[in-house]
């Protein structure tokens, strides 16, 4: 049955954060957001944002690039996550528009408070950016600063989930991230039919042998 998945949905609702519940609630509309992201990145044309102002887009881009950075492998930027989120906020996550704007405003307050002289998140060094995100992430050990409201913590969690979803959404159905970079990163082959051996540990399996001897029953 579906129990494993659903238990996990349940567990994530109670024990491990709100992520899976959020994904589950918003998943349908992610399809169009993912398509959008792919088209936007692939077209190479100047992109017109549907929700973000150009200034906001720069901040979101900088944020998602710290959640899944581009290093020796592609990250959120190469997968077109920014466009995925922009689309999300005018479709399935449109009820989060205010939360997003508030979150961005609070973010700037945090930036200026922690690093006087730094004007905005995108202008900070990556070390400074990571430090700012740590203060926003409720699941980190560091205490959050007093003025940071629950809404901005939720903002960060929603942004994290959206970034991961835009990065790992299934490319096989033709809606996914650019070039399937997310699946390549995690080693998920795109095929839909496989033959054993599947992995390292079953390659030298000699076939089923009965146990040598029955031990005492528990």
């Amino acid at each position, binding site marked *: *049955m*579906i*129990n*494993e*998945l*659903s*238990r*996990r*949905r*349940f*567990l994530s609702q*109670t*024990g*491990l954060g709100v992520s*899976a519940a959020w*994904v*589950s609630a*918003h*998943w*349908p509309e*992610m*399809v169009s957001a*993912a398509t959008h992201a792919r088209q936007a990145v692939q077209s190479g044309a100047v992109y017109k944002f549907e929700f973000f102002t150009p200034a906001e887009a720069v901040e979101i881009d900088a944020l998602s690039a*710290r*959640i*899944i950075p581009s290093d020796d*492998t592609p*990250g959120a930027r190469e997968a077109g996550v920014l466009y995925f989120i922009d689309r999300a906020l005018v479709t399935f996550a449109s009820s989060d528009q205010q939360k997003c704007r508030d979150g961005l405003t609070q973010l700037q307050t945090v930036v200026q408070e922690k690093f006087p002289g730094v004007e905005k998140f995108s202008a900070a060094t990556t070390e400074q950016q*990571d430090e700012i995100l740590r203060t926003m*992430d409720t*699941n980190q050990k560091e205490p959050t600063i007093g003025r940071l409201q629950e809404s901005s913590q939720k903002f960060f969690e929603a942004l*994290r989930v959206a*970034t*991961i979803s835009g990065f*790992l*959404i*299934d490319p*096989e*159905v033709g809606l996914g991230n650019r070039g399937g970079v*997310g699946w390549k990163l*995690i*080693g*998920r082959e795109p095929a*839909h*039919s*496989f*033959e*054993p*051996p*599947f*992995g*390292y*540990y*079953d390659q030298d*399996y000699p076939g*089923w042998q009965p*146990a040598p001897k029955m*031990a005492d*029953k*528990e």
Partner: protein
Amino acid sequence: MKVEQPKYKTSDEVDFVIIGSGAAGGILAKELSTNGFRVVVLEQGPYLTEADYTHNEIKVLGEDLLTNHPKLQPTTFRKTPQDKAKEQRALVYGRTVGGTSVHFTANFWRFHEIDFIERSKVGAIPGANLVDWPIRYADLEPYYTKVDWEIGVSGLAGASPFDPPRSKPYPMPPLPVKSSGVIFERAARKLGWHPFPAPMAILSQPRPGRSACMNCGFCLSFGCEVGAKSSSLVAAIRVAERTGRCEIRPDSYVHRIETDARGRTIGAAYFDKDKNTHLQKAKAVIVCANGAETPRLLLMSANKQFPNGLANNSSGVVGKNLMLNSGAISLGLFDHPLNDYKGFAVSRLLHDFYELDAQKVGFYGGGGLDARFDMTPIGFAMNGLPLDTPKWGSAFKRTLAENFTRTMEVFSHATSLAREDNSFSLDPELKDAWGLPALRLTYKDHPDDLKLAKWLNDRALELLDAAGAKKKWSYPIVEQEFAVHLLGTCRMGTDPKTSVINTDHRTHDVKNLFLCDGSSFVTSGRGQPTMTIEALAFRAADRITALAKSGEIGA
């Protein structure tokens, strides 16, 4: 590949209306139509087939393509009857022709002898409603064998020393072993335990009209495009349709079972796709709507004669004694790629702890452990990483890249004790999109269930140690608030004061009303109920056929 079916008029009094086309309803439809009866199956979900199934995670998981929709059919939850229920997603079940058997994992464990006689063996348990079944393993054995052969189960007879006796081997060999299965088998043997190839309702060899498993990796939560997974659609409903006597009527949401002045059912009232209501007349009604929707329908069918709900006058236990199966999940990380995302979920399991000695461990219960991997990429990024992994940044990305192919799970499946307070009932305020009372889940695990989950999980961690996992961790074991296995809510019994149906699956209170699904269970088994739901359905079909042929049902 739909088959031409008869079209009955709602005013035609057919022999049987079956409500629900899942594991039980599909088999009853097959058996009764094969036996010559005219059958209408009312299924609330759409008629989706292999052509409609997809590997698109978004449609399947996010849009609830195959399952009940939380917005159309919202639900509420509370821990005890003293609490006020809050709206939250409280359960999931299949809502398409074939029901939950379309998207399940397909673990097909038989119950063992102990599951039927546990009360006699261990005695009363404080705070629990533990009783024996009125039938025994031997009564069901021929029907388990029927499930193996007619529905299609892969496995290896005699591989587990703890297996109950069986009259025939499996009809086909087990599915190939996965890396998680090899790791599990080697570690379990090191510990002196007895791993064996998992019995799965997935074809290891082709059957007419059905392909063998292609190991696509989209199994749990997804429908099988090649018919390898033995859903009731591919294995039973298609046979029923070929009799020419069975009509599958999808998009038909039954909201009331009607009765006459004598207290007999006359048929089922349902909404069609456009929310128009109809009454399908029938000589008898069989409800196979699952352990949540079956009691809900009985409670919604209350009338002057049955003020507490249909078939609920004598006992008052309709919806009560709910059991969800307790359990736990541990994960392990290994040096080399397992690539366990390929293939079906489970290839090895063990039953060494099926029957624990309560005197020794200090609590009631038992269960099994299996080796598996069943996560999609996004789900893995959310829930599959070690709990101390950063949730974003370079370290998160590195760990994600490293772990996806190198992680496996050890899943503990276990008993739940029935408690009268644990139930599905009608929410007094919340309504669904059709204006019907929403389902309200009330559930608090018996303390023994939680102790058992922890005990089994400790064995899972031991196993991962013995396997040489370079890292291991577990999800927290907490009280359940979400229902998947829906068991015990219209329990079978000989005493009309404490049970809802008799051993023929006939309700004690309404002569031509039968119930057969997870709600019929008396005990929960060890976490894999579908095999037993299907064996019960085969047996119920024999009993109901005998009653109908002897004129015991009609008139």
